[in-house]
Structures are given as structure tokens and as C-alpha cells.
């Protein structure tokens, strides 16, 4: 699946407009950049500048209205919804601000969920999920349900779920937004450590200047365009 030459994500003049009953609202107005494999990129910018919209596009949850977007070398515009779903399963890991864990489902089965859509056996799913939970330090919370976990623990479960498929890109949209400062720091450290240990590129939306400062590269968004791109390779 992986083409070694290609960048993790490549965007060329990507636009995204929303149609609100005849009125077109531009959320992204021509965005071009490349995320290299295993990179660490922070996306910053004021509210409404298009950060989340960009993340959805990078993760193949949404498609550009214009321009070209390649994820792991594949042009998302040419893919059917089913192919896009498979691409997400194989190359993307999402971490959301509000965790999005399945209630009534144990930490272990939450982490194993992406593997369900790979057709792996329950035994193999669980084995991999257990291993991943150990890597985020939650081996003692395997059978806990989300409402039996702290916010920080829930987000670590979500991170384990995002990485259990060994994705090319890990997308985190304000992952510490719902956590207190200390817990947020711990989660950030975990994300940075996992980014350093694995081949997954980390693209992180944050409002926290300190966090942004630690990234090797910062993309500044404003009004749907990239205002500045510091520390980027290109």
C-alpha cells in the first residue's frame, strides 16, 4: 500500500466551501503544503480560520471542493466513499477533542474498533489492542468503560485507538482542549513520544502556544489560508 517516495499528505490549492442555502461560505481558500512522513506539525490560528476543516480533509473524512489532496500518495477525489473509508482505516488515526469513545464498550474493545473493519479475528484484535493500551500506560484499565475512566485516561485510550492500526498520519484536533493543564501536558508528552517512536506523522491543532512552540513546524491559519509556515521543509 505505502509508496515510499510519496509524502504522508500533499495538498495543492485545496479549497473547501460550504453551501448554506445558496450562500457559499469559504472555509479553506487555496491551501498548499506537504506533510512529510513522521513529521510533527502544529496547526494554529484563530477560531473559525479553518483548522478543523483542514483536519477533516487531511483525514479523508471530507473531500476538497477544488484542488488536489493526496493522502499516502492517493488522490482522495478519485476514491469512492468505501475506498476512502478503507484509506482512513489503513493510513489515518484520529484523536478528537471530545474523545469520541463508544460508551458501554471497554477500553480494550474501543481500541480494537478500527481493526474490526480490517476483518481481523477477535483474538488478534484484542491482542493488538492490549499491546497498544500498554504503550499508553493503561494496561490496568483494559476492562474499564469510558465512564469509569478520567478525562486524561479516556484521551489516552483514544490515542491508543488511533495508533493501533499503525497509521501514516495521526491527526489530533485540540486533543487537550477538554483536559486540565497538567493532564493536557501528559497527553501531549505521550503524543510526542509516540510520534518520535513510530513512523506516524503528527498533525496537531492547538491553541496552546507552549505546545505549538515544541513542534518542529507550525502552520498559521487565518481566514481559510495559510498565513505563515514556520520551520517547514519546503
Amino acid at each position, binding site marked *: 500500500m505505502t509508496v515510499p517516495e510519496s509524502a504522508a499528505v500533499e495538498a495543492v490549492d485545496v479549497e473547501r466551501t460550504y453551501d448554506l442555502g445558496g450562500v457559499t461560505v469559504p472555509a479553506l481558500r487555496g491551501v498548499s503544503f506537504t506533510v512529510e512522513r513522521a513529521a510533527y506539525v502544529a496547526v494554529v490560528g484563530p477560531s473559525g480560520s479553518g483548522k478543523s476543516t483542514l483536519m*477533516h480533509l487531511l*483525514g479523508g*473524512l*471530507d473531500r476538497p471542493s477544488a484542488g488536489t489532496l493526496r493522502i499516502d500518495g492517493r488522490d482522495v477525489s478519485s476514491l469512492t*466513499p*468505501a475506498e476512502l*473509508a*478503507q484509506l*482512513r*482505516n*489503513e493510513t489515518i488515526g*484520529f484523536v*478528537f477533542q471530545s474523545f*469520541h469513545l*463508544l460508551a*458501554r464498550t471497554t477500553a480494550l474493545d474501543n481500541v480494537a*474498533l*478500527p481493526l*474490526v*473493519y*480490517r*476483518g481481523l479475528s*477477535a483474538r488478534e484484535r484484542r491482542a493488538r489492542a492490549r499491546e497498544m493500551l500498554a504503550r499508553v500506560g493503561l494496561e490496568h484499565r483494559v476492562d474499564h468503560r469510558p465512564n469509569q475512566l478520567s478525562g486524561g485516561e479516556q484521551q489516552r485510550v483514544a490515542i491508543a*485507538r488511533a495508533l493501533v*492500526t499503525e497509521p501514516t498520519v495521526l491527526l489530533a484536533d485540540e486533543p487537550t482542549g477538554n483536559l486540565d493543564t497538567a493532564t493536557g501536558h501528559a497527553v501531549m508528552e505521550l503524543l510526542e513520544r509516540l510520534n518520535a517512536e513510530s513512523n506516524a506523522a503528527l498533525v496537531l491543532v492547538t491553541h496552546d502556544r507552549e505546545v505549538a512552540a515544541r513542534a518542529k513546524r507550525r502552520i498559521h491559519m487565518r481566514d481559510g489560508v495559510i498565513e505563515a509556515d514556520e520551520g517547514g521543509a519546503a
Partner: protein
Amino acid sequence: MRLAEAWRVALDALRANRLRSGLTMLGMVIGVGAVVVLVALGTGTKNEVESQVEGLGANLMFVVPGKVDFNSAPTASPLDTSDLNAVIRTVGDRDRVTVSLTSGETVRAGRNSTFTTVLGVMETTPKVFVRTVHSGTYLARTDVDTGRRVAVLGSKTAHVLFGDREAVGRQITIAGVRFRVVGVFEPLGQSLGVDRDTEVHIPISTAQRLFGTNRIDAFAIKAPDAESVGPLGDRVLAELRKRHPDTEFSAVTQDQILGVLADILGVLTTVLAAIAGISLLVGGVGVSNIMLVSVRERTKEIGLRKAVGAKPRDIGVQFLLEAVLLTTIGGVLGMALGVAASLITAALSPVPATVTWWSLALAFGVSAGVGIIFGVVPAQRAGRLDPVVALRTE
């Protein structure tokens, strides 16, 4: 996603909302149960009627004056003993023909009496119909030829008149005239709503004299085999029409009686089952409704599943299975309820009920079908949800 996994997810979803799932199933339980019960009652009644008609004997036909038509009044019979001799000649065998002349009369023995059906018949009756004598003998040819005052009693009439004492050899009076009991029938039960165990048989010649008539009401003829029933009937009708040009005659075969009864019962069963089917439809709409609620409630879950790689089809299948599981579990419970209700009805009332395998298979198929039909719209809706929108809903 593996199918086994999809089943598990669907089952979990139902379990998470036990009360709601149960109430939704109830619609299916009642619908399927009603269909099973009504089909069982219809089938049971049909089987019973068929066995009663067939139990009369094989290859039978009844020849009566008049048109057999539910609208016309019975025709006064122009038939008499000379017609009987002509029919016997046409059939070619006295043993295959019997007659009836029927009247309601008071039958008395000592202080006991009963009002019942007295039939003037021939000694050939047990050769034409299935009719066995329990004690004594049936009427003899000489009884018919000489018009003897002898009688064979149905088992109930014998019991009413003589209690547990032996009836054979005793005296009774019919319409005030003395008769000797020569035999008592084996109990037979009902034929088409008529209690056969109260009948009293006397020779036709005696009956004509007793009732003051030369009339014969009807002929019953037993054909040698199934193929000859029709042609034989035509020949007998032709002979009778020749003898009575002004009168219409009809030959009714056992198959025709069965056919008419089966048609009536079939229509009845179908109408009842269709009415019960409407409750299945209502159940199905309930399932559809609940599935739409379920999709809306779990929009965020759908978004998350899509984000981690669920294809539209995976989501669609998951919800479709949930609907099918709802209706088939309801269907199986409904089948159990239907079978139980049928058995109880059959045990506690005279209404027969026969649960057939095909009706159960049909009920199961229909409940799965209802799940698919009424689950497909909610499932498609779930499958097509935009993941970004879905994740954002609260």
C-alpha cells in the same frame, strides 16, 4: 467487517435498550402469533371437515331432485320406488345404491322418549357408507322387501331410551307405532355439524307407510372407483330426467362437497390471516420508526465508526441486522405464542387447530422479511451519513 461481528454489534445495540426493543418486538409477537393461530384454526377445521366427508365412504355421490344451489328452495321430491328400481338397473348392482326418506319423529321406550331424525333406508346402507353396528345386526333385505317394523338405533338414542341396558330385542314406538330394535350403531360423532349418533334407521318401505307417502328424498350411490363416479352420475341423471322431464336433478360427488367446503374455509382462513397480517404491517412500521430513532441517537457513533474505517455498507448492514434481529426474535416468540394458543384452544374448545410446519416457516420468513423491508430505509440513511456532520452532532 465480518458478519459474525455485525450480528454481535446488532445484538449489543438491542440489549442496550431492552425495554424499547421489547416493546417494538411486541408488535411482531402479536402479529406473528395471530397469523399462526388463525392459520392453525383454519387448517384444523378444514382437515376435520375433509376427514368427516371422506369418512362417509369412498367414491360416493348423492342424487337429489332440484338444482344444488344455495339460493333455491329445496324441490319437493317426485322420486318413488319405481325410480329406485330404475336407478338400480342403471347402476347394475343393488349393493351400490341406497335411499333416504327423512323425518323428525318422537321415539319412545317405556317412560323414556326423544325427538330425533328417523331415516327410511335400504339394507345396503352399510355397503355404501361406512357405518358399523356395535350390537345386534343391521336391517336385512327381507325387512325392506316386506316392510317389517324393525329399527337400528344410533348409540346416543339407544342410551337415552335404554340407559346402560341392552337395547337389541326390545320394543320401541316411532310416531306411536311399535318397532323392534334389531341393532345399535357404533358411535360415529358429527358429520358436517349433524350428530350421527341420534339417528334411527328403519326400512324404506316401512318408513313410506309410517309417514304416509311414496316419496324417496335422495339416492346415495357408491361408484366402483374414482374414475367412474362422474360417468355413472351422468347415466343416473339421464335416466331420471327421462322419467321426470319436468324436474331438474343433481348429482353431487364427495369431491364437489369437499371442493366447496375447502373453498369456503380457504377464503375464511385467508381473510383472517390477512387481517392478522395487518398487525404485522403495523409491527413493521414500529420497527422502522425505532430504527430511525436508533440511527439518530447513534449518529455520533456512526461518525466515529466511519472515521476509523467503517464503509457505508458496514454501517448499513449493522442497522439492517439490528432490524432483522428485532423482527425475527419477535417472530420466534410470536410463533411460540401462536403454537401455545393453538394447542390451548384445541384442548379447551371443540374448535380443532392444526399447527403446520409451513405456517411456521412462513411466519419466520415473513418476520425476517418485515425486518429487511422496514429496516432498509433507516439502514441506508445510517450508511450515507456524512462522517464530519455525524461526529459534530451532540
